[in-house]
């Protein structure tokens, strides 16, 4: 133990301190979580490699290896370079985005159930994507000639913008009450419900022609996601790499009451705004690209907290990112193989995998 700064301060209180040891149960618990963490880190590269080597089209392992170095047949090269590789990379980034955004939003709304839906980001993105698809279909004259066309590749942009606008609206609506976590949550849920209702109304009213693509998007799919989707993800990934180290301590303080955080020296409105912006940006970009994949943002922060129990708290955010990336790529791999050649959307697999994990965590640590 460190000596007291001043000899005159030898505490009266120290005479009353009790000697209690950490129970052995707690130690063995962190040993189990430590082992699981090792397993996760070990299996992550395996999942990524499997996701590249396995797929709907059955490719020889050696052929795939050649293709990775651009030496395979033209068909294999194309499948690897323009389908599997970008799909895996988009999956990794999307997983990181969802998981980090969930961790940020849970911390700053002080709500362990928060995920990108809590700020209305997912619902805003959904509505925007629907409006986009409506216009992409109906922006023609009644005689069938095209009035103007909106290229479908802008769909992720529409989703991203819709999510950001919804998140910003929630932010503005909560501004007057000093961005209190309760107010943010209530506003997010209220606005989210309205946007969701509008989206469902649109779907029921005009959705028939694009029902299938809308439903596929809404269940969260990595199908046909390619290199061009990275444009919507990478700026936020880079921004979060820059901001997350700066946000680490403020976010920890924001888990305290505002008065506490403020008197510990944090400018609460500034840092909460910044954390919200990064969280909403990560969520909106991911939702825009793959659709609202549930449960990653909700489950991963809890799972990471459990796994990082025995480690230094510095590892928490990297573990969140790793788990999110691995879970999305792994879920997508299972979704591709399960009913091959048909695909089960990644969002469905992620939810099916995530819920049991969540229930186990709740039972043990709830």
């Amino acid at each position, binding site marked *: 133990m460190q000596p007291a700064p001043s000899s005159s301060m030898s505490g009266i209180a120290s*005479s009353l301190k009790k000697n209690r040891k950490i129970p052995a149960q707690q130690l063995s618990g962190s040993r189990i979580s430590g082992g699981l963490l090792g397993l996760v880190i070990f299996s992550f590269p395996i999942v990524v490699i499997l996701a590249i080597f396995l797929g709907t089209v059955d490719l020889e392992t050696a052929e795939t290896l050649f293709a990775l170095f651009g030496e395979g047949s033209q068909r294999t090269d194309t499948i690897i370079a323009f389908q599997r590789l970008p799909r895996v990379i988009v999956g990794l980034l999307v997983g990181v985005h969802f998981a980090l955004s969930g961790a940020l939003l849970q911390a700053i709304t002080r709500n362990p159930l928060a995920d990108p839906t809590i700020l209305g980001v997912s619902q805003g993105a959904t509505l925007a994507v629907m409006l986009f698809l409506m216009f992409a279909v109906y922006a023609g004259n009644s005689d069938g000639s095209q009035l103007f066309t909106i290229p479908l590749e802008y769909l992720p942009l529409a989703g991203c913008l819709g999510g950001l606008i919804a998140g910003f609206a929630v932010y503005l609506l909560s501004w007057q009450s000093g961005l209190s976590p309760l107010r943010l949550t209530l506003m997010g849920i209220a606005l989210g419900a309205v946007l969701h209702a509008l989206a469902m109304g649109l779907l029921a009213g005009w959705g028939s022609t694009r029902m299938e693509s809308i439903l596929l998007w809404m269940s969260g799919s990595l199908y046909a996601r390619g290199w061009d989707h990275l444009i919507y993800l990478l700026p936020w990934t880079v921004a979060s790499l820059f901001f997350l180290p700066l946000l680490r*301590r403020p976010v920890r303080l924001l888990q305290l009451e505002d008065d506490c955080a403020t008197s510990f020296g944090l400018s609460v409105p500034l840092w909460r705004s910044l954390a919200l912006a990064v969280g909403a940006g990560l969520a909106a970009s991911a939702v825009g690209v793959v659709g609202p994949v549930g449960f990653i943002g909700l489950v991963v922060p809890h799972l990471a907290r459990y796994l990082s129990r025995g480690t230094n708290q510095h590892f928490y955010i990297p573990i969140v990112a790793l788990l999110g990336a691995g879970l999305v790529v792994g879920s997508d791999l299972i979704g591709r193989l399960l009913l091959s050649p048909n695909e089960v959307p990644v969002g469905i697999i992620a939810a099916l995998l995530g819920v049991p994990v969540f229930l186990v965590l709740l039972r043990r640590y709830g």
Partner: protein
Amino acid sequence: MTLSMPSSLPEATVFSSSSPREISSISLDNVTLGYSRQPVVEGLSLNLQQGKVNILIGPNGCGKSTLLRAMAGLLKPTQGSAVLQGKELHKWPRRTLARALSFLPQAPEVPENMTIGQLVEQGRFAHRGLIRALTAEDREAVSWALEQTGLLDYRERSMRTVSGGERQRAWIATALAQQASILLLDEPTTYLDLGHQLEVLELLQELSTTQGLTIALSLHEINHALMFADSLTLLANGKLLYSGPPQELVTTGLIESTFAIRGQYLNIPGHGPLHIATSSQRRKNPLPLARTA
């Protein structure tokens, strides 16, 4: 230490020789404080006694918490000024202010997933900022704060699983780890049993005498206030009724009239008169059970 010492304060020279901390005090001048235009405190002036224990007492809703929040720079006065070292509190950058004063709200919400050690480390934010790693000085401050509050062996315990008393002491340790020269505490003895209440108050008294800390706290227990205050302030309905040495408050009769109680003063050697309340003044018609048949 980054704050410069105000040369105009005569006390500064007296204390600077015995303490390395910068000396400063808060003065409220004719402040009106309120949430959404309804004033809770009106036209109140008060100077915290530097290097002393200043205790605020008053009935529920009298404005103690509001006053402390204003002193902590968390509530901007709608009128008047709250000043520290010649500068209005709300104009201070938050981190600079946090190195000069620390404030502990009443019974703060318990953070999820934080051990006592991690919580107390949060008190170092004002010194560390966003990036800087824990230095030896930070560790020493944390250990010292934990030792003062008797929590050295509780570092690894989760804030959610410890008792109410241990939790409250962890919050006090966090405020101490901030190493500010002014310490403001809103009812720091809530949730503590009598022994731990006295322990906290003795700790605060010791900090003010040995380290020259300026301490302001609100209390419910009148006798603890009488025992530990160097300067006692009595509030009622947002107005200041008395501010001065506790011994003189006893002679005014204000305690009984403000709290609507009746009782007797009892002289305890070494502690001056303490008040034993025996009945409430408010109840005009006591329950039939209280009567003797």
